[in-house]
């Protein structure tokens, strides 16, 4: 014979009643939940599209934008100018740092003339 606790019987009945609750979301409540979802999704969108534009825009961003690129362009032009027409002060400076300029010829340009190989007759 099994003894049942009347308090537990009541509890089991209450549990059964609770389980039978049909909590169907109302349309207004569904709308609120979906509005939340839309809000969260809208806030996520810019994060996903964080790298807009094409290759050029992305390269520009990688270098640090227009200010950085204009600085780079100025430095490039200055470098080319110094290379083509170095100021005399620059030549003096390089000479003092790495010594005098030395020319080395790989071919003796007057060799053929010395031997007379190219002489007529």
């Amino acid at each position, binding site marked *: 014979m099994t003894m049942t606790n009347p308090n537990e019987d009541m509890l089991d009945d209450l549990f059964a009643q609770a389980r039978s609750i049909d*909590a169907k979301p109302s349309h207004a409540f569904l709308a609120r939940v979906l509005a939340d979802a839309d809000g969260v999704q809208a806030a996520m969108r810019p994060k996903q599209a964080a790298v807009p534009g094409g290759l050029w825009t992305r390269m520009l961003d990688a270098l640090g934008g227009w200010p950085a690129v204009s600085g780079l362009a100025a430095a490039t032009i200055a470098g080319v100018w110094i290379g083509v027409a170095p100021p005399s002060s620059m030549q003096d400076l390089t000479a003092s740092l790495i010594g005098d300029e030395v020319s080395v010829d790989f071919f003796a340009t007057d060799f053929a003339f010395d031997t007379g190989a190219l002489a007529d007759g």
Partner: protein
Amino acid sequence: MLPPADCQRTAIGLARIQMTLSQDPFLGAPDDALLIAFANGDRQAARYLTARLLPRVLAQATRMMGNPSEAEDVAQDAMMRLWKIAPDWRQNEAQVSTWLYRVTSNLCTDRLRKRRGAVSLDQVAEPLDDAPSVPAQMQTRARMTALSDALAQLPDRQAQAVSLRHLEGLSNPEIAQIMDISVRSVESLTARGKRALADLMAGRKAELGYDDDQPE
């Protein structure tokens, strides 16, 4: 607060979804696949996920809270947490349903804890369902409120284990997974919780219509 026009538009959209569930583009896809689609900007994914998950979340919250408006607040909060975790969701690591059971359960015990010793009148203000008669409806409401108030008196883990076992009807291994504890711990928590709940409810038998020891 959502403008009425938006509410109406969303409601129409939902009605359309309910009518065309047979054409569910995500039919057969697991919940986490929909959640990832949502994180990737698919608006339809949110609608289908809500249709799948919200009724169960709301039911769980209603059973634990014993009050429809509080249950809606909990369910909305749980769903909000789901939307927010979507971009970081790791597919195949956890089931969305398990995660939602855990979150809803935690949110309910957070609220129940605050309710301890301070039961407000609005907790018995709204009917739970469309019961056939007003007296029966009132009695069901009183019983569910009493059950929820008694759950509020239990330690959080006991209240969670008891509600998952006896209100949701889940198995002990399922509860162990949700609560991240061993099956043995679940058994212990549910047994102690049920005993404590029976003691708490013992003094309210007559009030709740159980005075003749014959549950209806």
